[in-house]
């Protein structure tokens, strides 16, 4: 798609500048990609505070490894791969009782100053917002019942819209494995979200 190509070309130019030490260019890259990375990680770990920290970790690691980045893959795909590793490392090192020293209420939308510089926007009507939030809650609960591998495959495909080959790159597995994970993940989700399916 022309839009995607233009975005990729802009990313490449920014990456080249960032590799030369231009921090402003890297800051722009962070701004361009933070939304997708944060959304992907948030869907994986289901905790805004952890997702915020892990997203930061992704961009710091990306900066450290930027000199090794080759334009064979899209910059976005490369970031997703770093995010994949960060999430799995987090899972391994996470304490059994969870590390929620910071209360998630810190990020509650209704407690954020409306005059803050980066205030989340809400453009839906209250009814739509309520219904949407309820559906989102059900979907998140269903996703939580999947294994991490199945959850990640379905998030990368059906939410983030990555191509099969990109998912295989990110998850470091074969196309056949991606196919199998997606098939079983969707089957289980279909069962868990039967009511939502039937109402459509």
């Amino acid at each position: 798609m022309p839009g995607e190509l233009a975005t990729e070309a802009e990313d490449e130019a920014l990456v080249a500048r960032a590799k030369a030490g231009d921090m402003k260019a890297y800051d722009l890259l962070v701004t361009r990609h933070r939304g997708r990375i944060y959304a992907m990680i948030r869907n994986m770990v289901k905790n805004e505070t952890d997702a915020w920290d892990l997203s930061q970790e992704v961009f710091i690691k990306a900066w450290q490894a930027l000199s090794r980045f080759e334009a064979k893959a899209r910059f976005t795909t490369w970031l997703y791969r770093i995010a994949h590793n960060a999430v799995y490392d987090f899972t391994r090192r996470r304490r059994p009782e969870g590390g929620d020293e910071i209360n998630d209420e810190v990020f509650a939308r209704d407690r954020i100053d409306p005059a803050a510089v980066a205030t989340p926007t809400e453009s839906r009507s209250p009814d739509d917002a309520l219904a949407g939030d309820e559906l989102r809650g059900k979907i998140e609960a269903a996703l939580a019942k999947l294994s991490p591998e199945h959850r990640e495959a379905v998030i990368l495909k059906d939410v983030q819209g990555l191509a099969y080959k990109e998912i295989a790159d990110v998850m470091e597995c074969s196309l056949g494995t991606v196919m199998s994970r997606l098939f079983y993940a969707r089957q289980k989700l279909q069962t868990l979200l039967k009511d939502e399916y039937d109402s459509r």
Partner: protein
Amino acid sequence: MNTTPDEERLALWVEDELDATSQAAVDAWAATQPEWLERREVARQMKALLGASLPAAEEPPYAEFFNARIAREIEREAAMAEPVTPAAAEPVSPMVRPSGKTWRWFLPATAVAGMVLCFWAGTRITPPAVTLAAPAPLVPATTPVLYTPEKGVKADYFASASADAMVIVLDGVAAIPDSFEVPDTASTGGGPGASTADIDPPTR
């Protein structure tokens, strides 16, 4: 198409990722394959449901702070990675290096003597008498910048060196209701708090 398409082609067909020609060829094969047709339908429905409910991109809270913190961390790491100055890196000549072996045996004795001296000094010092009358007014020291996340809340900071105390007054915070109970995660003596990060360890 009479022969079964290979696995990769089928996977791409299920996801509608094939070009028009290949798509048509697999469509012809799949016309007699209800299982594959259903699999593609499930994929399409799931994509529509999840795509409409979960955002592909979501700005992290405090987005500008998010960027600033990354920049600060990168700068900090860059500063740490800078090479040390030649003077600092210059190795100590073996000729002037103190003989570690000789002094090593004196260290424990010196430490014990130091502790005894400190203990003795502590027993000799008497605290100054506390005067209850006319306590010194709290004088704001170097006033730090106080950040309040809620609009309308005013924060004042007072510190007194003589009283060894500091006070932060929050004006405009709603009263805490009597029914409020401190959650488990904030209590000190309770068990471990419940985790909201819900991801299982990978089974690899």
